[in-house]
């Protein structure tokens, strides 16, 4: 069964360091999403890609976060410098194309980030 892959699964870093997360969506899925999930809360969308283009990054803290999907397939989310408040689960999801019926989003297992 096709799955969204993410790595690493866990990351511990010190504040002010740089961290990067990788996501490989389900093959053929044009839309890719990065979410942040703080413990005890629902996922919050950080950035949405349609192929290689960003269609929504309104909630991405652009002073320290960046995301790219250069070839429209896999994607990298970077934080530089990391702050204590960035500790959270970072989830990647993918879907076929927005606007299709239901357009189900499939989530990866996430990367648990701890900033010390």
């Amino acid at each position, binding site marked *: 069964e096709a799955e*969204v892959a993410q790595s690493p699964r866990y990351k511990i870093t010190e504040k002010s360091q740089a961290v990067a997360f990788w996501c490989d969506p389900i093959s053929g899925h044009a839309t890719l*999403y990065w979410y942040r999930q703080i413990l*005890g*809360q*629902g*996922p*919050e*969308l950080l950035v*949405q890609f349609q192929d290689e283009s960003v*269609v*929504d990054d309104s909630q991405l803290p652009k002073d320290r976060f960046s995301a790219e999907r250069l070839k429209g397939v896999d994607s990298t989310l970077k934080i530089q410098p990391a702050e204590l408040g960035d500790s959270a689960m970072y*989830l990647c*999801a993918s879907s076929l194309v*927005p*606007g299709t019926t*239901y*357009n*189900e*989003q*499939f*989530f*990866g*297992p*996430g990367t648990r980030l701890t900033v010390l």
Partner: protein
Amino acid sequence: QQQVKQSPQSLIVQKGGISIINCAYENTAFDYFPWYQQFPGKGPALLIAIRPDVSEKKEGRFTISFNKSAKQFSLHIMDSQPGDSATYFCAARSWEGAQKLVFGQGTRLTINP
């Protein structure tokens, strides 16, 4: 700005009982309402979803009830089992713009054997 409000935050139900989780929204542009189930250390997985042109959708033991006029929808889990113990999130998607999902805060469900 919280667009989808979910309650309760936590719920304990006896095995065989009915679990009910409620959500409310304000944005009338929402046109798709999914429920996700999340186990510890895993990403959310789609459980069941509904569009506002129907008032109820049932899949096995899981039912969504939808009240468009009240802008409320709920998840009912019949004959709740210990394996249903997880965190449940309601969500809503707008037909406008990038059509992103907005999630509720989550309900931690525990089914006691």
